[in-house]
């Protein structure tokens, strides 16, 4: 037998020293005990003959998807959403437990739909609960940033996987500051939403259809993501390049749409002036990719991370529609104006779908500007992306990070690796004010509550034991 070229040593360091003394290379694993109470479940899953191939299939399915922008239309048409039906971000929640920003967005949404004249009157409507219903966006192939409230009249982006025809949906981004998704519902918020409904939505629909019908085919959202990651965007808290590339693709068709030129100009100004406009395309593109992995029996890959402002929930490929939830955390970051930590609501929004797909906080290395949100440095950004590789199944060959020698972004969060290492997914996020109506108060970094990963692990292990007993 030949002498090994390398020994991976995990455990006692003296054995690594002994190998180094014999002039053979040693790779030392910085092993630490796993999260409390997970030893047996981790061993069960390590021994599960299905796990490895299931994870390979789940990851491959996710990486295969190409998301294209095929339509823009109202939620009533696309999702069959009816008056009184509200979608929201995160795992399921009722009004009683809803946080300030989610309540504010629901109240604004009720006014937008004409269910009440004054948003303040909507609280009673939701308290009675008789004529309204709440449902997670994720249950309708949809994702919503921050509060994520979707009402029937809101126009939605439609993303499609050309290979399968599967679709996902997301509302149009309103910009920053006092906006519905941050829980603001003042007159300026509703005025903007009505303009988006009456002008921006229909114009985008015409433009998207015209681009699709032209020789160039539909806008390749996955392709734009590939490019923007090389231009300093991580596609969660920074979408500047992506937004401009979208404008590049849509503006000729907007100009020639035949719609009023003042409306076109205002729309171009609105999109170009909103660095986050592309976020609402990045998110459904990520969901489209991750949904391809759903329902993979035996897979321990996370397919959704989402927050409703009260709970943080995850879903995995191998556990069907079950949510594993814990309390949403407060972000660590910087505050607008004279807002401070006491003003911030716990983490909220479906936008952590970007991290679930390997971008956002996971691609921090490609967007070093974002790390300053917590007073970090460029080395911190590189270290964060590298650290996320410790908890993911693989790399995305399309989405690469130039400064890391074009290494693919860390993709496919593995519940077992999170539990083994105690490394939690790093999420870049905006912060909503905890009082309904306030709007955005800051931005920063946050992680899920640690306990949801052992919860998901326990269920995955339970299913593996059932399979073994069959």
């Amino acid at each position, binding site marked *: 037998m030949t002498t090994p070229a390398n020994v991976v040593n995990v455990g006692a360091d003296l054995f690594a020293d002994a190998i180094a003394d014999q002039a053979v290379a040693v790779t030392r694993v910085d092993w630490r005990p796993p999260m409390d109470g997970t030893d047996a479940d981790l061993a069960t899953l390590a021994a599960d003959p299905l796990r490895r191939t299931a994870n390979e299939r789940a990851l491959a399915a996710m990486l295969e998807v190409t998301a294209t922008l095929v339509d823009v239309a109202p939620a009533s048409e696309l999702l069959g959403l009816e008056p009184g039906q509200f979608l929201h971000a995160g795992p399921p929640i009722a009004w009683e437990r809803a946080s300030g920003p989610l309540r504010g967005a629901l109240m604004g949404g009720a006014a937008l739909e004409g269910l009440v004249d004054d948003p303040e009157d909507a609280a009673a409507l939701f308290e009675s609960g008789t004529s309204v219903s709440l449902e997670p966006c994720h249950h309708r192939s949809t994702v919503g940033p921050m509060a994520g409230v979707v009402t029937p009249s809101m126009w939605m982006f439609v993303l499609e996987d050309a290979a399968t025809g599967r679709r996902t949906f997301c509302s149009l981004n309103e910009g920053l500051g006092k906006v519905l998704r941050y829980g603001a519902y003042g007159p300026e918020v509703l005025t903007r939403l009505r303009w988006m409904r009456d002008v921006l939505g229909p114009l985008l629909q015409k433009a998207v259809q015209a681009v699709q019908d032209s020789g160039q085919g539909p806008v390749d959202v996955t392709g734009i993501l590939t490019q923007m990651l090389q231009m300093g965007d991580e596609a969660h808290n920074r979408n500047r390049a992506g937004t401009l590339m979208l404008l590049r693709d849509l503006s000729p068709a907007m100009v020639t749409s035949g719609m009023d030129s003042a409306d076109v100009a205002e729309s171009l100004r609105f999109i170009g002036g909103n660095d986050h406009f592309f976020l609402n395309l990045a998110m459904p593109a990520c969901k489209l990719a991750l949904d391809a992995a759903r329902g993979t029996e035996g897979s321990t890959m996370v397919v959704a991370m989402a927050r409703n402002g009260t709970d943080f929930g995850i879903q995995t490929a191998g556990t069907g529609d079950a949510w594993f939830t814990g309390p949403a955390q407060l972000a660590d970051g910087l505050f607008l*104006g004279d807002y401070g930590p006491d003003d911030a609501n716990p983490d909220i929004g479906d936008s952590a779908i970007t991290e679930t797909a390997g971008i956002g906080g996971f691609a921090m290395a490609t967007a070093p500007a974002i790390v300053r949100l917590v007073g970090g440095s460029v*080395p911190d950004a590189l270290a964060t992306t590298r650290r996320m590789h410790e908890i993911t199944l693989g790399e995305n060959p399309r989405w690469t990070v130039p400064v890391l020698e074009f290494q693919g972004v860390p993709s496919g969060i593995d519940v077992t690796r999170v539990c083994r290492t105690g490394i939690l997914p790093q999420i870049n996020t905006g912060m909503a004010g905890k009082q309904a109506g306030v709007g955005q108060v800051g931005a920063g970094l946050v992680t899920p509550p640690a306990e949801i990963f052992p919860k998901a692990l326990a269920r995955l292990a339970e299913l593996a034991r059932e399979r073994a007993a069959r």
Partner: protein
Amino acid sequence: MTTNHVELRPGAYADSVTLLQVSRAVQGLDGVLAAQVAMATALNVEVLTEMGFAVPTEAGANDMVVALRLDDAGALDVALAGVDAALRDANRRDDGPAEVAPPRTTASAFRRVPAGLALVSVPGANALVEAMDAVEAGHDVMVFSDNVPLDQEIALKRAAAERGLLVMGPDCGTAVVGGLGLGFANTVSPGPVGIVAASGTGCQQLLTLLDHAGVGVSSALGVGGRDLSAEVRGLSTREALRRLDEDAAVELIVLVSKPPADDVAAEIREYAGSLGTPVELVLLGPGEPDLTAGTEAVLRRLGRVVPDWPVSGSTAERGGGRFLRGLFVGGTLAGEAKLIAAEALGADAGHTFVDFGDDAYTTGRAHPMIDPSLRLDHLARAAADPETAVILLDVVLGHGAEPDPAALLAPAIAAISQPVVVAVVGTDADPQGLARQIITLVDAGAEVHLSNAQATRRAIELIGDAR
């Protein structure tokens, strides 16, 4: 008195994140009630206005606004200096990228360096997870960890067998792979022998005796003490035999094990018979030859001369005790001594053979080859016991073992009035140096053997003299 200060800095620019950071830094200064340093975009002007600052109407998106609320106008100079310092600090550069953090899992390590094999010595409850990483990445693995549940051992070995990979262990203390010693391993020359061993110190005894006889060993592959049980059925033994059979340098394979479960023995014998390389079985247990006799059989089969196994030094004068006290760090060496003593003196004659490497002694502490303190403690007690007639010890050298075991034992041995016999398992090329270890022990008053069986027989002889 509270004062507002607003100034425009046309043409100055920093990104919004930097400015948030600057604002936060300035807010922390003495005398500053509120601070907002921002580009004068419409949104920021709105925020500033809400905060009660009057922003000049000419302010545009390319101007930086510094807005400060001070508890006294006298604090202005300090506050503005703070703004400048914070802007400077925000643009500081660190000294290049940070060092890359080490991998946290075995899977991650193999992703970085996809070569070689894994050596796992984490607690037994966590060993399967790490070892499975190696197997799934297509690498052989040695599991030093003990206390690995049997069903996990089987799952690991089945996964490895499907991929043609070798699992050494669990509870594998010693391996030599292509000349590289892993775990507790002696340094030996390459040669015609390949070893498959279900016992760590048994393997080491064979390695060191063959080395003394001038016969090298290409590889010594541990398989773990349960591999030939009825449950595991030799999954690793088969793969280890196959590997050594493929190795052109190996002329004779030696399989060292406790007697396998009956039907497993037949399966393994049949498999061994199908190989191109001859296989010599060295079985450990009642009625079987000891390790030294097994080594002699190997030498004869190779057509080599069987040497006299070396002895150095002489023991102290015999005292009045009745019992042999064996204090071992090697489990197989303890077992061998116990068997030999039972045959010579009877099984229940009151002589004791303690293995300090047994689970009962290692839970929550290092193996005695690394941490000798527990055995030293028991050695002092045995020496103080008037019933003790003879003390029998082993000293195991090699990679991984403590750097100078003889030096630690010597003062204790020198203080003992009873005869002390020591089996030293080591080679001249071991890091501790066999000759140096022997001299130290001899100088302390011990009689030192290379063969554990021979050392045991000598101790028994001394008991006989004492009776």
